[in-house]
């Protein structure tokens, strides 16, 4: 038995997963929207991965394998709490976009505003589109790897991503327009 195999399964798993821990957590965070849910899902995903680690033969990239498990765990959690992730419900439950903890000096106010709106827009996306946006835009993964993680074709990845981008653009534009109108109305009242 080699020295590597003599280590416990937990140790071997930890060593293999360590460099992907952050990515898995962030994937769950963007998918779930709330940090508490993200932590739960990421933990569940890692535990599921650990349980089936013996069956992982290394045929696929471990990152792909781990992300697939994390993605499935998130989708499963979202299905269980269907409706919870709608923007309205999230807001009712005190949803806070993930970047609001950032300090808000004046020069960054505009940027933070974009992030807040972006988080809302992502949360409003359908689950299957959101996971592709997360993998592509956040994680910067190529199409073939996303296709491999989600076990769908690259064409499906592209089409879903395009639809998701359109929705994000529309959401952000609408919010901007509404915001602009409000500013004009306020200015009119003041004038």
């Amino acid at each position, binding site marked *: 038995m080699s020295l590597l195999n003599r280590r*416990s*399964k*937990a140790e071997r*798993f*930890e060593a293999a997963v360590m460099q992907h*821990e*952050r990515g898995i*957590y*962030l994937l769950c*965070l*963007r998918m779930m929207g709330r*940090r508490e849910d993200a*932590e739960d899902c*990421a*933990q569940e995903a*890692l*535990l599921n991965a*650990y*349980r089936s680690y013996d069956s992982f033969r290394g045929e696929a990239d471990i990152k792909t394998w781990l992300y697939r498990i994390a993605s499935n765990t998130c989708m499963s959690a979202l*299905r*269980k709490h269907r409706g919870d992730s709608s923007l309205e419900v999230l807001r009712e439950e005190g949803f806070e976009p*993930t*970047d609001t903890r*950032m300090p808000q000096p004046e020069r960054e106010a505009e*940027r933070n505003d*974009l*992030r807040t709106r*972006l*988080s809302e827009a992502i949360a409003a996306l359908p689950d299957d589109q959101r996971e592709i*946006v997360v993998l*592509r*835009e*956040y*994680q*910067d*993964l*190529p*199409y073939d790897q996303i296709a491999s993680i989600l076990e769908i074709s690259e064409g499906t990845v*592209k089409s879903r*991503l395009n639809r998701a*981008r359109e929705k*994000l*653009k529309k959401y*952000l*534009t609408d919010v901007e327009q509404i915001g602009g109108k409000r500013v004009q109305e306020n200015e009119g009242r003041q004038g």
Partner: protein
Amino acid sequence: MDCRTFSLLLDTPEAERTPEQVREMEAHAAECRDCALLLAIQREMRCMDEEEEIPAAFSASWRERIRAEEENKTMSRFPWKKILAYAAAFVFVAVGTAVSYNNGWGTAGKTANQTAARTTYTNDGAADYGVTSGTYLNSKAAGTSASYEAPMMLADSFASEEMAAEEASGVEREAKIVRTVNFTVRTQQYEQDYDEIRMLVEEYGGRIESLNTSGDGTAYSLRRANYTLRIPSQRLEAFLDAAKGVGNVSNYSESSEDVSENYYDMQSRLETQEAKLQRLNEMLAKAKNISDLIELEEAISDTQYWIDYYTGRMRGYDSRVADSYVYITLREINNADAAEQKELSLGERIVNAVKASLEAAGEMLQAFVIFFIAALPWLIVLAGIVLVIRAVVRSRRKHRKAAEKAE
């Protein structure tokens, strides 16, 4: 750069974009509002992730959970359930087989007439009567000593006669010897020797006073017969010679008790009492008043009692002297014992040991088969119950999984 090229570059991982491509993308974004938004989305998203910190609690928590899981798995890796199931099955089969074996089911029919411990008691009442009743009569004699001494006048008159009679009878006395022999016969041909001892007893005019047998002839329950024989003393030596030839004799012991003194003392007392009785009867015939009659009647009664007592004791002695006691223990031995006895060679001993082992194994197997067949109806019922429970559990599990999937 047009929007299509911009889109293609947007889908290219950042690390693969050249600085030139990045500049061109920014230049296009400055002119195209849609593309500018897409670029801003992508950049903001990546910035958001870069600035996000992993909660320390999460990092520690998942590691803790997998370690806990590993520990639990290590604990549960030992197959307690399997071992318990096998142990239970083993105990069930072993106990069942042992019960079957001990009940003699494995040898039923084969040695049905020998399975149960059997006692044949053919006590000769007359033989022991003297001994047992002697004890009884002694106590009775003590209890009745007052009435016996009451007619002192009469008793005194016979005392000198008793002594005279004792002296007169001690002239030529035959020695009264009670012989007792005890030995063990070890044999591999139990049944044959068992019968042979009985035949020898008959042949030499003896009798079996008691016979006690045990064992069923199996490897773990070898047979044994305890004989209590009464053999005419005159033919005892011949009988012993014959009996010793039955098997291998061991633990031989012999004792002789000289009961002459007691016997002849008893005899003289008896004669005195008989003489006394005769005199009393003569006196009774001549008695004239009632009080004498009553006193004589009582004396006659007591005398008769002692005559009976001495007669019984003497009969007992006669029996013990005439028929010696022979205690024989007939013990069956197995091949291994036989090998030890005969000092066989190593090879023979091994062969005998293997034979004995195979015999035992065969008997155990028979006992197991019989137990299994006997327990079959119960096993079928038990299997039915287990299958039903299993089906119910599986069905519930299936429904639960289906419900989870549906969710």
